[in-house]
């Protein structure tokens, strides 16, 4: 006990710490006798911290590994390497039995409000699941708690006996939120909780989440690919590309001085409400597609698409450190970070097309 307290104090207010997390998925070979296996490098050497009461935004393209990272943290996937510390306790390799009590403290809200609720079960029993799994409440007591939760997320508690199909997308997402809230968890991982909803409903769910955070002191890891949503809810943002974090910073710093060309390109794609302003702005169009995560590029993983790429980018992997005199909490992994006011759509890569390593061992154009 005393040891735990010490680590807690040493960590300060850090609730979740991820260190050098690696997650590889074996690729099905399709051969009868499996030879050497290929792996999808979904998450590669990711480290991050989430402090109590804050919201960490996690952004990136589809397939960049953000959902995998979230599922590793929630211990839905076994981890290939690295360490996950939650509330001072190493949870990386806890057995399912020892993980059970911690399930109450780490919860998830899922992307698809249609897929995340069992269509054959009544809403009351879906939201009551946490109570029956952990055997904390039964019968009338469970019903009362469930109805209280429904009220908390703005659902009519009388709809206890309905099926998910009888609710709209926004209401279904509220059901998902209620289920996650059952034990007042310390950490909630929101895996694109609003990307499947209409814009008007998105705002309602986002407001609900921030009200709950204020009232219940929740901590969120908020995954999204919509940057304006992330900006609205997050305190800090981490940008992922191909399994790695390329830039991490408090929200305002990120928007004011994006350092990584990828972040810059993402931000330039955010729609602006003012059409005049939008017309003046230069949109950065990235060339090519995201390379295969089975054989990721050498050096900086972004170099095959980067307008600023130079030979160093192919040979050396950049470290995640503060660049260009930024505060210590604004880190970027780029050898040639974007300077304030620089327009990277004007720069040309100084390495020839055929020198870009799009897959390790495979030269583009060869």
């Amino acid at each position, binding site marked *: 006990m005393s040891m735990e307290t010490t680590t807690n104090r040493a960590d300060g207010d850090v609730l979740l710490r991820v260190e050098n997390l690696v997650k590889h998925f074996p690729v099905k070979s399709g051969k009868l006798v499996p030879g050497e296996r290929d792996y999808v490098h979904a998450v590669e050497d990711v480290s991050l911290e989430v402090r109590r009461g804050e919201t960490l935004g996690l952004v990136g393209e589809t397939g960049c590994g953000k959902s995998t990272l979230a599922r590793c943290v929630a211990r839905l996937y076994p981890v290939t390497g690295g360490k996950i510390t939650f509330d001072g306790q190493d949870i990386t390799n806890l057995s399912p039995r020892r993980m*059970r009590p911690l399930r109450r403290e780490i*919860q998830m809200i899922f992307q698809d409000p249609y897929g995340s*609720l069992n269509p054959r079960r009544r809403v009351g029993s879906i939201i009551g699941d946490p109570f029956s799994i952990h055997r904390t409440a039964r019968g009338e007591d469970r019903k009362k708690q469930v109805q209280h939760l429904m009220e*908390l997320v703005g659902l009519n508690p009388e709809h206890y006996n309905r099926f998910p199909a009888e609710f709209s997308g926004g209401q279904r997402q509220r059901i998902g939120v209620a289920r996650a809230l059952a034990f007042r968890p310390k950490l909630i991982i929101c895996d694109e909780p609003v990307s499947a909803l209409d814009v008007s409903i998105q705002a309602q769910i986002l*407001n609900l989440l921030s009200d709950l955070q204020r009232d219940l002191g929740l901590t969120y890891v908020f995954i999204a690919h919509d940057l304006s949503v992330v900006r609205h809810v997050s305190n800090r943002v981490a940008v992922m590309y191909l399994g790695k974090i390329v830039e991490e910073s408090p929200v305002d710093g990120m928007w004011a001085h994006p350092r990584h060309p990828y972040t810059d390109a993402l931000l330039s794609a955010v729609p602006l409400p003012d059409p005049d302003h939008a017309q003046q702005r230069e949109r950065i169009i990235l060339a090519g597609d995201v390379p295969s995560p089975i054989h990721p590029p050498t050096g900086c993983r972004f170099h095959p698409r980067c307008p600023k790429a130079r030979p160093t980018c192919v040979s050396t992997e950049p470290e995640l450190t503060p660049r260009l005199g930024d505060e210590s909490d604004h880190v970027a992994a780029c050898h040639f970070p974007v300077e304030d006011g620089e327009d990277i759509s004007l720069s040309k890569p100084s390495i020839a097309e055929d020198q870009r390593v799009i897959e390790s061992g495979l030269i583009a154009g060869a």
Partner: protein
Amino acid sequence: MTYDIQAVGESELPVEPSAVRAAEAQKAIEGKSPWVLAWRRLRRDRAAMICLGVIIFIVACAIGAPVFAAITGHGNMEQFDTIGRTPTGLPVGPNSTFWLGTDSLGRDLLVRIAYGARISLFVGVVATAVTVAGGTVIGLAAGYFGGVIDSVLARFMDWLLAVPFLLFAISLFSVAVVHPIFGFIGPGLPIVIIVLGFFGWATVGRIVRGQVLSIKEKEYIEAARALGAGPWRIMFIDILPNLLAPLIVYSTLLIPATIVGEATLSFLGVGVQPPTADWGQMISDASTMFLYGPWWYLVFPSAALLITTLAFNIFGDGVRDAFDPRGDLYV
């Protein structure tokens, strides 16, 4: 805890805590379960409802078989050597004493058919239940656990589906009669049910496995795991309810097949043994003397078998349409 709901900014769903509204809404609150909806669709299917009536009639006949015996005054096993057989020893045709005629031993065919319905329905229901239960559990395990368990079980199912059922059943029957260890089972109902169940579950197992493979990738399974649910809870509380519709449909269609299977085994002499009344046996016996004239002995048991299986099949089709209006079930 007090919490201001209005602060949430809800516009989709006005929550009015007024008692009047609550009382009014009470009726609409209970969601219509998929079962209720399916039953409503089934009620509108006229063919299925007629067949359901036929099935209920057959079940009533089976249960009330002693009533037939009482009305006619002819026992199930009672042989009428003088009035039940012609002087040359052939069965007598339908008349006022024997409404459907008699069989080769001078027994009342009507009473025998009613008693035969008991065997057919009993085997049909019990063997189907065994088949579906076994197939469900094994299919769930194979689909959910995957890996080596899945490989072994799936290959075993493939093997079972490749075995020639009748040849195997006949030889198994011989073993059951004479084998020093398995001999205790003996010929009769249990071996029929065991054989039908053993050869039937693989099909159910395959259907279940396939469904589980797709269901287990759903986010609500991940949500259950995130809540700390163990594999058994996930299999039986989260996955199984999603399988019930296809299972019920498959079961109703499997019952007639099982009834025919039982009749086939008894026809071949490896099923239910005489003197127990059984449709398959009657058809077998009748076919040996059909050429000499007693058509009723062949026609009435065959008609009983035909009507029963037809009713179950059409009803099963109705059940499938009711559960699956879009037609995306595997069966």
